């Protein structure tokens, strides 16, 4: 094959950039903007992904408000509240980790990352306990589902319709299950971020993966901020 001209353009300022600059970006600033913009677009798809579920929830809640109230009352709200607090703390530690990277404070960065993952695991633990309770109370939709003689809040003499309560639990398990799956994926991302941070790849000039991972984590937190009131506190007042 003929020795063709140098294929790779030898633009002058190629070599002074950090090795992490990908070949097709002109400057680092362009690369960071592209990554965060790309993550925001991905979060847009996630909003529409959960949006389909929230739309179904909205419609069935308006149709079967009483049965949804009865079913929601059977879930432990304090567990839900503690889970919300856990996720909010994890969002704080994510932001502190990014701040650690910006001021090159390795201990703060790595400490915060580890704290974030611990909070994530705590969240999944509490979620697991909740699912176990539901399993024992036979509130898991399917053959073993039973929701007999449960009064509708506010109408003590009227019983909730088990078929409609089963729809609530179907939506409950799918929405919280999908959220928990996103939490597991988040933990996977943060394990990878932790290893890169441990190897010292992040500097005040280059810590884009941390920011992008942080955006994803905050999004998962926002989804939970909406899930908590909508699923746990439908009709709690006496």
């Amino acid at each position, binding site marked *: 094959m003929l020795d063709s001209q140098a*294929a790779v353009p030898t633009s002058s300022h190629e070599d002074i950039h950090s090795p992490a600059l990908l070949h*097709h970006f002109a400057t680092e600033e362009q690369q960071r903007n592209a990554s965060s913009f*790309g993550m925001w677009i991905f979060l847009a798809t996630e909003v529409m992904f959960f949006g*389909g579920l929230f739309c179904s929830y909205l419609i069935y809640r308006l149709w079967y408000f009483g049965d949804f109230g009865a079913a929601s009352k059977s879930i432990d709200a304090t567990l839900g509240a503690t889970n919300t607090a856990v996720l909010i703390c994890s969002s704080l530690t994510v932001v502190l980790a990014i701040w650690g990277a910006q001021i090159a404070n390795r201990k703060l960065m790595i400490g915060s990352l580890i704290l974030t993952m611990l909070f994530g695991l705590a969240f999944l633990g509490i979620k697991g306990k909740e699912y176990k309770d539901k399993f024992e109370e036979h509130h898991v939709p399917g053959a073993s589902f039973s929701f007999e003689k449960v009064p509708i809040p506010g109408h003590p003499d009227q019983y909730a319709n088990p078929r409609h309560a089963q729809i609530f639990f179907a939506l409950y398990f799918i929405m919280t299950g999908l959220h928990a799956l996103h939490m597991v994926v988040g933990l996977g991302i943060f394990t990878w971020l932790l290893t890169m941070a441990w190897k010292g790849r992040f500097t005040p000039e280059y810590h884009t993966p941390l920011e992008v991972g942080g955006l994803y984590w905050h999004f998962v937190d926002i989804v939970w901020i909406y899930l908590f009131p909508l699923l746990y506190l439908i009709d709690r007042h006496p």
Partner: protein
Amino acid sequence: MATALAAPVERENYLNKEYGVASWLLTTDHKRIALLYLISITFFFFIGGFFALLIRLELLTPAGDLVQADTYNKLFTMHGQVMVFFFLIPSIPAVLGNFLIPIMIGAKDLAFPRINLLSWYLYIIAGIMMLHCMLTGGVDTGWTFYTPFSTAFSNTKVIEAGLAIFVSGFSSILTGLNFVVTVHRMRAPGMTWSRLPLFVWSHYATSIIQILGTPVIAITLVLVVAERALHLGIFDPKLGGDPLLFQHLFWFYSHPAVYIMILPSMGVISEIIPCFSRKRIFGYHFVALSSLAIAVFGFLVWAHHMFVAGISVYAALIFSLLSYSVAVPSAVKVFNWTATMYKGSIHYDAPMLYAYGFLGLFTMGGLTGLFLAALGIDVHVTDTYFVIAHFHYIMVGGAVMGYLGGLHFWWPKISGKLYPEGWARLAALIVFIGFNLTFFPQFILGYLGMPRRYFQYPGEFQVLNVLSTAGATVLGVGYLLPMIYFLWSMRYGKPAPDNPWKAAGLEWQTQSPPTTFNFEQEPVVTWEAYNYDEIDTGHKEEAHVVG
């Protein structure tokens, strides 16, 4: 034009830069990924086409005597699923869009090359899952998966087909994401928004739909699979669910999906017509903004698929009104293309013939859409062959004509070879004739009241069905021709000069086929889009690019 008859020295380009399977399967070059998509999409196009021929053969006779009822139901289901999710939605964006958008805006590659390769692999995984589903039993729910049939009454592989389409949805999302970030972040200096080629504008609008629409069908398919596997009650009326909720969530994506299929080929037509009329596009800003208007209004109209499904009369009124608002931007585009030819200097090369075909058939397809949006008529013609004819006029008459026109227009740039012009014009004519013979009788069948998805029908519909089947065979031949002479041209075609059509656009100012990084130096754009007057009168500034 191609003055240098002596074989030019084999310049290095993205094809001959490296060889070997790994150089193809692990490439992050947007041009190679486009070719990978071209091969896999053509494969699925011929599978879907084969099913279509079987359906047309079955409908030759009123009694169902070629295949049994179940097989026929699987045939039209898989024809729909393969054609929609594995050919039409990826075709132009993944092949021509992937190849051309970075070059057209003067970038070295898409914003996320590795995600681009991931989206091809997701497409291949989805394709394998769909093939496995087809070979081990297939699915008979129709491409629309209506519940409660799909969740409770069908005993075919609905879960597997649903998961295959779920995975192919993410391939489409990632392509859309890549395009939006590339257009925003990677434009060459001087490539302002009003100098962007309309091909890029239409792909930008398509990407918005891919990003905001596809996730909704992804979650809907998850719900269908969950309901079928775990017997939940979300869409099953026996357990308190509402089958219409499935239809709302399904059509929220599936109507904008038809704009994912047509907008890219509108982009191709907006490139071909100015080039072969040697004229600037008429009303550039209006054509560009009408692409965005179609993308946004496309999300407001979905329930015109459900006028008789049981939604409330008042909701039907609202959706019918909104459906007419989405027809205006399409009409504006057709008028602008026709006005572009006024006082032009028109050449009748194959791409232009495909553009004529597109204009004719898309106009008829769009106008029959007005019939379907009118509430009174829709009650009679929905779920009949009138609807089948309408969406085939848009998808096959519009999207596939645009796809073939684009392939012919950019073939010299993609392969570095010229396709045989005579055969190409003949193929365009055969496709046009075959298409009309196949689908025009179906309008008449539709108003007569022949329902869709029928494998046996009353005798009085037979004559029109025989005509339609005859047309289908002609159309089949018409589609085989390009495949043959494109492959032939790869081997025996004359080497193509860098700008065989003397077209405007950055992609015509680099080598054909381009080098791996598209340009020697980063181009600087100093001219307006479609400056054919400058090209024809000779005093056109070169974008400091060699060759």
